[in-house]
């Protein structure tokens, strides 16, 4: 077990190094980052002075090590668009909004996906199963930005039930969370269904039935408990999917989270903020996967030895 965790840890560190190299080089793809960072009217003297100050005249590997050193402390430099704030400050400032939206949408997705997935496995081949399949299919094929716009059109403009955009009370959260969670509902439901189908075939479910347990107890207690493991593995991917998906959804709904921050930073070519956001999400993803792999190895000993 320790060996497995150690190997996964080392792999994660390698992944992290790779991510940092890519994020580091992105800002330098266009040549000197000062070309885009400094205002047009900056003279040559400012140019050389800032180059010296930021160490842009150093060889690239020295620059990279400075970047890694600062990044590990969470320092990505001052923002260019939002004067007087550092990039990391901005990320942390926008984080609660994204977490709130993502958390709510994951909660809704799980609350919807698990019952539908379980029921369509239990009532396999009935109308309910067909409806479940349809939801799963649509979840994979609907573009989320389009769904967001259609939701605004129907529920905010036509019916006037919810506000069209912005962050505020509970009302504001429902439309963006639905648009964001739609995709996760589909994948979560499919997994719950297939894993539930496997479990329902097993001997201990038959035993529970023979024992005379009420059907709801057989399904929801004995069945779901054992069927819950495979869906949990995609949880990390779903969380990060929410973070990435938030770029489009937050743009459509003007939700002041990390996604909107990232888009604005890209449009303003604010590389410090872009680097901070990208590194943040990647670290989150890597950490999440590491955690899930370790958890999974605890649950299923076969994994430790492969």
């Amino acid at each position, binding site marked *: 077990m320790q060996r497995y965790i150690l190997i996964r840890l080392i*792999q994660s560190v*390698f*992944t992290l190094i*790779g*991510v940092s190299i*890519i994020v580091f080089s*992105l800002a330098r*793809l*266009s040549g000197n980052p000062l070309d885009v960072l400094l205002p047009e009217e900056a003279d040559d003297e400012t140019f050389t002075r800032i180059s010296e100050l930021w160490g842009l005249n150093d060889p690239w590997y020295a620059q990279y090590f400075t970047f890694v050193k600062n990044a590990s402390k969470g320092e990505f430099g001052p923002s260019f668009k939002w004067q007087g704030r550092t990039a990391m400050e901005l990320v942390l400032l926008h984080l609660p909004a994204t977490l709130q939206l993502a958390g709510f949408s994951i909660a809704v997705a799980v609350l919807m996906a698990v019952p539908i997935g379980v029921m369509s496995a239990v009532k396999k081949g009935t109308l309910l199963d067909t409806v479940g399949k349809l939801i799963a*299919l*649509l979840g*994979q*094929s*609907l*573009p*989320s*930005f*389009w769904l967001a*716009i*259609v939701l*605004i*059109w129907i529920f905010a*403009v036509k019916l006037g039930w919810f506000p069209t955009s912005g962050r505020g009370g509970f009302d504001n959260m429902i439309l963006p969370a639905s648009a964001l969670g739609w995709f996760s509902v589909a994948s979560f439901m499919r997994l719950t269904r297939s894993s539930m189908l496997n479990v329902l075939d097993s001997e201990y479910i038959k035993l529970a039935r023979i024992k005379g347990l009420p059907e709801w107890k057989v399904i929801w207690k004995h069945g779901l408990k054992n069927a819950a493991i495979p869906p949990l593995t995609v949880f990390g991917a779903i969380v*990060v999917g929410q*973070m*990435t*998906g938030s*770029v*489009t959804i937050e*743009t*459509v709904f003007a939700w002041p989270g990390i996604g909107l921050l*990232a*888009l604005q930073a*890209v*449009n303003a*070519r604010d590389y410090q903020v*872009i680097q901070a*956001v*990208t590194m943040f*999400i*990647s670290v989150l*993803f*890597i950490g999440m*996967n590491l955690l899930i792999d370790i958890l999974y190895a605890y649950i299923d000993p076969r994994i430790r030895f492969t």
Partner: protein
Amino acid sequence: MAIEANVVELPQQLPWYSLPKLRRAAGVVFKDYPVMWLTILFLVLVFPALTAQWTAPHDPLKQQLSKRLTAPVWSSGDPAKPTSWDNILGTDKQGRDILSRIMHGSRISLMVSLSALAIGGTIGTCLGLISGYFGKWVDHLIMRIVDVFLALPLILMALVIVAVFGPSFWTAIGVISVLLWSRYTRQIRAEVLSIKQMDFVARAKVAGASNVRIIIKHIFPNITNTLIVLGTLQVGTVILLEATLSFLGAGIPRPNPAWGVMVADGRDHIASAWWIAVMPGIAIMMTVLSMNMMGDWLRDKLDPKLRQV
């Protein structure tokens, strides 16, 4: 006997609109046969993509300000703006015909997805073959690179790359290929790992075949089914990705009629002119849906192992 025969006859006398018959017909079309999905795919994607310049009713870029914001022909909008069969799906705020733009948009979607699949798929497959066949440090190196690409927030990276190089048709294809290859590598590598263990590979080795020959002649033919299935399933993902990038202004540049761009154009007019955003979205949805269904069907036929993908 006569009575029994009657009982058996009964279901056949049901009218065509009876529930069991409808259900059966629906079952045939929706579940077992890919005919419907192929038809939709052809109508929405392939046919317009190939023939848009002759069959589209209008020039997709031609602006007719007098006809701006015309509603689709079936809607009974306000009488000041008469609908007409000339613009079946209506026009956008510059008076461009939506149907023509969607048809030309099919070409963009098809070309972007096929090119990105070709580039990303080739790179991904080659790396997967190398990684799976040679193993050891080569495998470790390639798989760590794959991990890196899987850990990066894709859309964000695409936005940054486009911000640096500027949006264009080829940037979009390049970005999507860069994001796509790692999935191929993972899948193909896993496949190669199991094929490598088989006897015919060992025999080829004993017979003195070179590594390159074994990979091309003995291993590659065994992964073609996987490639076809993976490709079909990826087209939908790629079209969605391209549409999302275009929507965010990082894909196909304006005024090209890409579906994502059209949805973005209609976003501000959703309250007054819903059709501008809704129509291209339906095109995206139908294309991706039918592509996914085709992929599912192909997977079941060719490669049941891939069920979990």
